[in-house]
């Protein structure tokens, strides 16, 4: 019981980069702490008051010293800034070949959907050696998706999509925490990350509970909600054509241009009046409250594949072998 860890496991490609910076900072901290402690204690003992009458030598200061202890720390923090920004960039730039997973925070659980439609709660199964992108949002308050062994964390904010990525390097079980205070059972909003061999992961994905893929559930929603009535893709349509839209710039009525990313698609479903596409009327009704966050993610996943249908063979968006979508789609209801 007295063996306890003092340092977290390294289980992702990012971990060693973060730790290298950490050790550099520890070295700097130890050096300056000892320097200052030694300086203060030595001087305070060496020049301790020996008689009430002693008169210290007046020293007003020294420009040279002031410059020294201004410029040396300035140089150090400059190095730290560049290094830490570089680590940050490698933590936020998602590799192109990442497989996609969505996670929705809801008090007090993490609901995870894999692209094949496989779902899990408070567990996350990922393959080793493959970059994984997680798209995060929340159904209620702000949560934060934190896997210490991977040195990654990102807030799950209601009303927007945040993304993070990691590439696990070691098979095993790791903690998943909620790091943003979210109420009563904040400390119970924890889970386990299982890092598996890619084959085992595929087997797990294709297991008995696998339903229709995220995009195919989204397609069914798209039909059920009659989105196709307006977004039907011909020139007379009342809504913009969605095929091939994802990732492209969109010109808005107010002259701005935005990129059609996941957040844009979500906002356009939930708050259609926020960004009106040039040439269209603000007539779309809001779907606020009608769709759960998971359903929104399904719709967004479907709209992303609409790009593939037009330009390419179906299924190109998913690097993982697509699970043949069975006709019987599971209930899309998230709750």
């Amino acid at each position, binding site marked *: 019981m007295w063996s*306890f*860890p003092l*340092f*977290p496991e390294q289980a992702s490609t990012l971990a060693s*980069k973060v730790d290298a*910076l*950490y050790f550099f*900072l520890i070295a*700097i*901290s130890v050096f300056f*702490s000892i320097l*200052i402690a030694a300086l*203060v204690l030595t*001087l*305070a003992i060496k*020049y301790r*008051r020996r008689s009430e009458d002693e*008169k*210290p030598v*007046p020293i*007003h*200061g*020294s420009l040279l*010293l*002031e410059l020294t*202890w*201004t410029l040396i*720390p300035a140089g150090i*923090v400059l190095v730290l*800034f560049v*290094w*830490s*920004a*570089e*680590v*940050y*960039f*490698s933590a*936020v730039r998602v590799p192109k070949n990442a497989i996609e997973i969505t996670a929705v925070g809801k008090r007090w659980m993490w609901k995870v959907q894999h692209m094949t439609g496989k779902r899990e709660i408070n567990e996350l199964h990922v393959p080793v050696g493959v970059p994984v992108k997680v798209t995060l949002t929340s159904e*209620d*308050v*702000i949560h934060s998706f934190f896997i*210490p062994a991977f*040195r*990654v*964390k*990102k*807030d799950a*904010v*209601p*009303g927007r999509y*945040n993304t993070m990525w990691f590439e696990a390097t070691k098979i095993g079980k790791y903690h998943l925490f909620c*790091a*943003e*205070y979210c*109420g009563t*059972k*904040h*400390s119970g909003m924890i889970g386990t990350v299982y890092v598996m061999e890619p084959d085992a992961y595929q087997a797990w994905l294709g297991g008995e509970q696998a339903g229709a893929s995220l995009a195919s559930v989204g397609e069914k929603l798209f039909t059920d909600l009659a989105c196709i009535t307006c977004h039907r893709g011909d020139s007379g349509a009342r809504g913009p054509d969605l095929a091939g839209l994802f990732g492209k710039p969109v010109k808005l009525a107010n002259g701005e241009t935005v990129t059609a990313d996941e957040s844009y698609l979500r906002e356009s479903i939930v708050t259609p009046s*926020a960004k009106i596409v040039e040439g269209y009327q603000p007539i779309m009704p809001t779907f606020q409250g009608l769709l759960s966050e998971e359903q929104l993610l399904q719709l967004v996943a479907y709209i992303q594949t609409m790009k593939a249908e037009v330009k390419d063979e179906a299924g190109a968006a998913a690097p993982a072998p697509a699970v043949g979508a069975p006709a019987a789609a599971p209930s899309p209801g998230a709750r």
Partner: protein
Amino acid sequence: MQTEVVKGNEEAVPGNGLDRENYINAKHGIWSWLLTTDHKRIAILYLVSITLMFFMGGAFAAGVRLELMTPKGDLVDSDAYNKLFTMHGIVMVFFFLIPSIPAVLGNFLLPIMIGAKDLAFPKINLLSWYFYIVGVAVFLVACLFGGVETGWTFYTPYSTAFSHTNVILAALGIFIAGFSSILTGLNFIVTIHKMRAPGLTWFRLPLFVWAHYATSLIQILGTPVVAVTILMVAVERLLKLGLFDPALGGDPILFQHLFWFYSHPAVYIMILPGMGVMSELITAFTRKRVFGYEFIAISSLAIAVVGFLVWGHHMFVSGQSTYAGMVFSALSFLVAIPSAVKVFNWSATLYKGSVSWESPMMYAIGFIGLFTIGGLTGLFLAAMGLDIHMHDTYFVVAHFHYIMVGGAIFAYLGGIHFWWPKITGRLYPEYWARVAAVLVFAGFNLTFFPQFVVGYLGMPRRYHAYPEEFQVLNVLSTAGASLLGIAYLIPMVYLTWSLFAGKKAPANPWGAKGLEWTIQSPPTTFNFDHQPVVTEEAYAYAEGHDTSHDAAPPAAPVRA
């Protein structure tokens, strides 16, 4: 050093004003205190009230630490635990740390240090205390009706749409107390500009005054923003305006911008006055001019200004744009430079000084060490790539306690001990003061150092229950907190004792420079019998300091 008080020699202490007219015995009765406009009496009112709040906040912390001794949440339930850490944070930040040094030591000393008979607006000064007390009262009502559990940060949409506790009352308490902070800042700035004694130029001001000037700027510019922000939280809760609720088109992250725009500079409201105290302590106990006066003075202003531009470092993982994050990261690193300048200058002041290790100096030396660790660990969190991992873990908790306890509270305790003879006219038992200082230092480090380790391991903040592998470090932390709690009680006992039985203090027990040491202890209501004239720089010990402890007679100008 302290022995039995011998009645016979009480009269013999020169410069002691206990048996003469002084600000304490000038008037009698409860109303003479509650309606006073004397800055010194108002300082005493604050001293009593913030001390009560300190022990209240400490009691909440004790509950938190006791709960965390075991990994299972088994002492109190989750809601109670969440209330404990929330109310610990609110009490300590808004009702203790922010008023602590400015409202007690600043109020008492600032007019005296600049040779004035009071602050520029004595009645507004009293009004400030009433704002503070009404704020405290409203918050206490919120506590009595079940408390609040949003975390002291009131993050939306949790605080606006999900919490079922007394968010509005607690927010109202903070809102009202904020006016106390704004008015005190305003009072200090006007006083420093308009009421300096003849000859007291800006670069002759004690560094304590410079630090309070910088602090006051933050109080005036920052506090209204947090006041508006928590008002928005209250209004959103009541009326569902949709300011922060994404379902109504609002943005929860907007709250974080507004909140940290004040609450990061608020850290400097807590630490800058402590730095001012440090400069006074270091010079008095080395009997030497401070090294690099101008650099220390200007670095206070630099910290105050740059401190306003770093709030985004609380939001590196919120989804904030990478480039905004880079700017905030760079500016946060920049704050390290003026902070380092201060530490190096204080250290250099010791060189060839006449260093005495009395209890206030022990706190000062402790401050240098702990503030250094607190500042250096701040670099870890300003480093964007590292902060991804460390954000909202115990590493952050440890870091800001090194700044706020190791920094601000050490300076506060050092300052209280240093000026206690001036404030009360009594000396405290030095032996016990040294024992307490050592115990506070040891207890503090045992409490918070393990939290750096458990934080990097990944233990998130505000966790009622936690995985078992974190237990050993948490037990160490709780053991340290127990020691720290006892150590805090020791000064309460001997300082209270000294009020009745302490040896009478001379005007200048430390042989220190500064106008406050030229007048009797405790001072008269208007501080000076004649307008003092300043003819030299601050800390002009070089030309020969007072060798006798009986100092100058009241009302004399600083010795030339």
